[in-house]
C-alpha cells in the first residue's frame, strides 16, 4: 500500500480545551477515508490544520513521504491539498469562472481573457458533468450549486488530496447523488479523499476506511467492510458518562401543565411536522447533529423565522409570532448561541447589559428617565442570585469571562419575567467550572416554574440536565426520550446517537408520534 498522507502526533490546544490530542493516522493513495466523531470531537480542527487555517502545536504531517510544514492556505494548496469547508469560500459578487480561477486568471499583462476563462471553466464543468453556467454570479446559485463549484475549484487545482467537511449538510437527495458521482469520478482519477461526516449512510456508502475521533483523541481506524453501523456508533460515543456532571435524579422536578405547544410546524427546506409540548418547570432538550435544522425550529418560536404552516399554542391560546417583539410580549425569551455578535453589548457595562431589555421597568413613572437606584437594586439582586463575578457594575462586559457573560445574558432573560426560555448552546465556549454553575442555575430556574427549551450539541448536557429530549434528524423528529424512562427510551448516548443519525426511531411510551 502507498501512503500519501501521514498524520503523526498532531496536538492542538485551544484555551480551556484540547481539541486534538496526539492524533496519528495514515491515508492511502486513492482511498476515500472517512473521519467521524461527535460534534466537537476535533474533526473540523484537524481539517483546518491540514488546510493551513490553524497550525498544530505539536506533531507532523508527511505528504508523499516528505515532511511538510503547512503555515498558510497557499502552503496547503502547494502541497496538493484542497479543502472544501462547511462555510463556503466563494466570493459572491464574482462569476463561477472568476471564483474558480481567481488566483490564476488567464490573460496577458493584466488583461483578463474572458473567453479563455469561460472556456476553461466550461471544460472543467463538462469534465465533471456539472450543469453550471461559468458566467453566472455565485450569489445567484443555490447552496448545492455553490457546493459543486467548491468541488470544481478543488478539482481545478489538480489536488491529490481533497478534504470535504460535511459536504452533504446542505444538499437534498438528488444533489447528494450528484456528489456521490463526483466523488466516484475523483476516485477514478486517483484522487485521495478525506470525507468528514457523521451521517452513517454516506460513510458506509462511500468510504474505504474510517477513522474515529472522540474528544480530540483517535479511537481507531477501521476497514469499512469490517465494522457495523452499531459498532461504529459505540466507538463514537462510548465514554465514561458521569465524569463531572451531577445527575439530576436528586432534584427531579415535578413538571407542571403544558405552557407551549407546537403543532405540525413545517418550513419548506428546513423542518417538517414538528409537534411537541413544553411543560412548566421542565427542561426540554433539542438534540440532533449539525445541519439537522433544530436551530431553525428555535428561531421560529422567537419570530426570527416564519413557518409555512402549523400552529404555536401558548397557555391554551394559539398565538402568532412574527417578530422577536411578539415573542417577548408573549413572555418567550431567547438566548443566542452567538454570544459575541447577538448577545452582549461589548462596550457597555454589566449593569446596562443586564437591564437593556427591561428599561421601561426601571424608568420611574414611564417618563423615560432612568432611575439609577432601581437599576442598581436590580443589578445587585440578579448578580448575587446568578453569582456573577465582576469588578464594578459599570465594568465592560467584554472583560468578563465567557461563563460570567453567559450568566449576565441569562439574568437579562430572567428580568423580563419570561415563562418560556429558549437557550441555544448555553455553555458553548465556557470552561468546565462555570458550566456546572450554569447547569445548577438552569435547574433552579426550572424549579421556579420556567419552561426551558434547550438546544445543545453536547450529548452530556442532554443526558444529565434535561427531563426530556427530542431528537431531530434532517428536519423531522426522530425520537423522544425521557430521563427517567423505565423502558428503552431513556436519554442515553446510544439512543441519542441512533436517533440523531436516523438509524432508529425511539419514542417513550405515551409520546405523541
Amino acid at each position, binding site marked *: 500500500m502507498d501512503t500519501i498522507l501521514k498524520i503523526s502526533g498532531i496536538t492542538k490546544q485551544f484555551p480551556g480545551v484540547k481539541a486534538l490530542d496526539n492524533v496519528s493516522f495514515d491515508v492511502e493513495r486513492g482511498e476515500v477515508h472517512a473521519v467521524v466523531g461527535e460534534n466537537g470531537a476535533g474533526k473540523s480542527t484537524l481539517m483546518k490544520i491540514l488546510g493551513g*487555517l490553524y497550525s498544530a502545536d505539536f506533531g507532523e504531517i508527511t505528504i508523499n513521504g516528505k515532511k511538510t510544514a503547512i503555515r498558510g*492556505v*497557499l502552503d496547503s*494548496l502547494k502541497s496538493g491539498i484542497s479543502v472544501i469547508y462547511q462555510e463556503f*469560500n*466563494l*466570493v*459572491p*459578487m*464574482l462569476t463561477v469562472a*472568476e471564483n474558480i480561477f*481567481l*488566483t490564476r*486568471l488567464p*490573460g496577458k499583462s*493584466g*488583461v*483578463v481573457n*474572458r473567453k479563455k476563462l469561460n472556456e476553461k471553466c466550461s471544460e472543467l464543468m463538462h469534465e465533471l458533468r456539472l450543469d453550471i453556467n461559468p458566467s453566472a454570479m455565485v450569489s445567484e446559485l443555490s447552496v448545492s450549486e455553490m457546493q459543486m463549484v467548491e468541488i470544481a475549484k478543488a478539482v481545478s487545482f489538480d489536488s491529490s488530496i481533497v478534504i470535504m467537511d460535511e459536504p452533504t449538510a446542505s444538499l437534498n437527495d438528488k444533489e447528494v447523488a450528484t456528489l456521490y458521482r463526483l466523488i466516484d469520478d475523483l476516485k477514478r482519477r486517483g484522487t485521495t479523499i478525506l470525507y468528514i461526516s457523521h451521517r452513517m449512510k454516506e460513510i458506509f456508502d462511500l468510504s474505504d476506511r474510517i477513522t474515529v475521533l472522540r474528544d480530540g483523541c483517535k479511537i481507531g481506524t477501521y476497514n469499512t467492510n469490517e465494522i457495523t453501523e452499531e459498532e461504529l456508533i459505540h466507538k463514537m460515543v462510548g465514554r465514561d458518562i458521569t465524569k463531572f456532571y451531577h445527575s439530576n435524579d436528586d432534584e427531579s422536578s415535578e413538571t407542571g401543565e403544558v405552557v407551549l405547544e407546537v403543532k405540525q410546524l413545517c418550513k419548506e427546506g428546513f423542518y417538517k411536522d414538528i409537534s411537541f409540548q413544553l411543560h412548566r418547570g421542565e427542561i426540554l432538550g433539542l438534540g440532533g447533529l449539525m445541519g439537522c435544522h433544530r436551530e431553525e425550529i428555535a428561531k421560529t418560536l422567537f419570530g426570527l*423565522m*416564519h413557518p409555512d404552516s402549523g400552529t404555536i399554542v401558548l397557555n391554551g391560546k394559539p398565538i402568532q409570532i412574527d417578530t422577536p417583539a411578539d415573542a417577548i410580549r408573549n413572555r418567550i425569551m431567547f438566548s443566542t448561541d452567538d454570544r459575541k455578535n447577538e448577545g452582549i453589548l461589548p462596550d457597555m457595562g454589566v449593569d446596562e447589559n443586564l437591564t437593556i431589555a427591561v428599561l421601561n421597568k426601571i424608568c420611574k413613572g414611564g417618563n423615560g428617565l432612568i432611575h439609577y437606584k432601581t437599576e442598581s437594586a436590580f443589578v445587585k439582586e440578579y448578580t448575587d442570585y446568578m453569582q456573577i463575578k465582576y469588578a464594578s457594575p459599570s465594568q465592560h462586559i467584554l472583560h468578563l469571562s465567557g461563563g460570567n457573560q453567559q450568566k449576565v445574558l441569562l439574568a437579562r432573560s430572567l428580568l423580563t419575567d419570561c415563562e418560556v426560555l429558549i437557550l441555544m448552546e448555553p455553555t458553548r465556549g465556557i470552561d468546565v467550572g462555570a458550566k456546572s454553575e450554569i447547569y445548577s442555575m438552569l435547574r433552579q430556574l426550572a424549579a421556579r416554574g420556567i419552561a426551558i427549551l434547550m438546544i445543545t450539541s453536547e450529548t452530556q448536557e442532554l443526558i444529565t440536565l434535561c427531563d426530556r429530549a427530542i431528537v431531530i434528524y434532517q428536519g423531522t423528529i426522530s425520537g423522544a426520550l425521557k430521563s427517567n424512562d423505565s423502558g428503552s427510551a431513556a436519554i442515553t448516548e446510544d439512543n441519542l446517537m441512533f436517533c440523531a443519525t436516523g438509524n432508529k426511531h425511539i419514542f417513550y411510551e405515551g409520546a405523541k408520534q
Partner: protein
Amino acid sequence: MKFLKLWEKIGIYGLTLFVFLVCWALLGENFVSAYNLMNVLMQICLVVIGSVGIVFVITSGLIDMSIGSIYTLTSIVVGIGLTKLNIGTVGSVVLALLVGVCCGLVNGGLVVYMKIPPFVATLSTMLAFKGVSYLISSGKDIMYISHESFKMISSGTILGIPNPVWIMAILLIAGYLVYKYTRFGVYVRACGSNASVTKISGIPVKRVYFLCYICSSVFAVIGGIISASRTLIGTSTAGATYGIDCICAVVLGGTLMAGGKGNIIGMFFAALLLGFMKNMLNMLNLEFYYQYVITGFILVFALVMGNLRELLQARKV
C-alpha cells in the same frame, strides 16, 4: 416585483432619459442644442473624472472622503509650480500628480497598516489635506492668469470638442475597461465582496487597497487640474462639495456602498442626470438651492428602490 426587476436593469438609465425628456419638454430647442449639451458635458466632466476613482474605492469595500481636499490642494500646488517654482505647465501638472500619489499612499497606509476604518481615516486626511493647502499658500489665493499654455488644458479643443470632454471620455472608457477586463478589476470586486475569502485565496488585498486609494487621489488631481486651468486661480476654499458630489454620482449610478459591485457607465449617467437638472434650473432662472433638494430626493428614491427588493424578499423568510 416586476417593476423592481425592471428598475434593477435600467434604473438610472431610464431615469436619466426621463429627466432628459422632461427638460426637453420644458425648455424646447434651447435645451437640445449642440451648444447647450456640450455645455452640460463641460459642467459634469470634473465630477465624472473624480467619480471614476471613487467607483474603484467603493467597489473594493473602502471609502474616500478626502478627494475634495485633494482637488482643492491641486489648485494650490499648480499655482506654486507655475508662479513660485517656475517649472512650467508640464512640470506643474507632474508635480500635482505626484502630490496625488502621495495623498493616496497616506490614505492607503492609514487604512492598511494602521487599520483605521476607511471612513474615519479619510475624514481625518480630508481635514489634513485642506490644512496643507492653507499652509503652503499662507491662506492667500494664487493667481496664474497669464499662463496661456496651462489655460489651454481647459480651453483648447480637438476636432471642435473641448479638451476636458476628451479627457473625461478617455478616462471613463479606460476606467470601464480596467474594471471590466483586467485582473485588477476582478480583484477589486473580490475584495469588496468578501475580503477574507479573497485573502485566503492568496490575493494581495493590501496592494489592491493601496492602488484603489492612489487611483481616487490621482483622478481627483486630474479633476483639480482641469478646474484650475479654467479658473486660473489657486484657492483653498474651492471644491468644498467635490467629494460629496462624486460619491453622490457613484452611488446614484448603481455602485453598492457595501462593495463588490460597481457601475462606471451608471455613474456617468447619474452625473449626466444631475447635470441636466442643474442646467434646467439655470435656464429656468431658478435658485441653485433647488438642486440640492431635488438631488437629495432622487438619491433617496434610487436607494429605496435598490433596497426594496431585498426588503420584500427578507420579509418572506
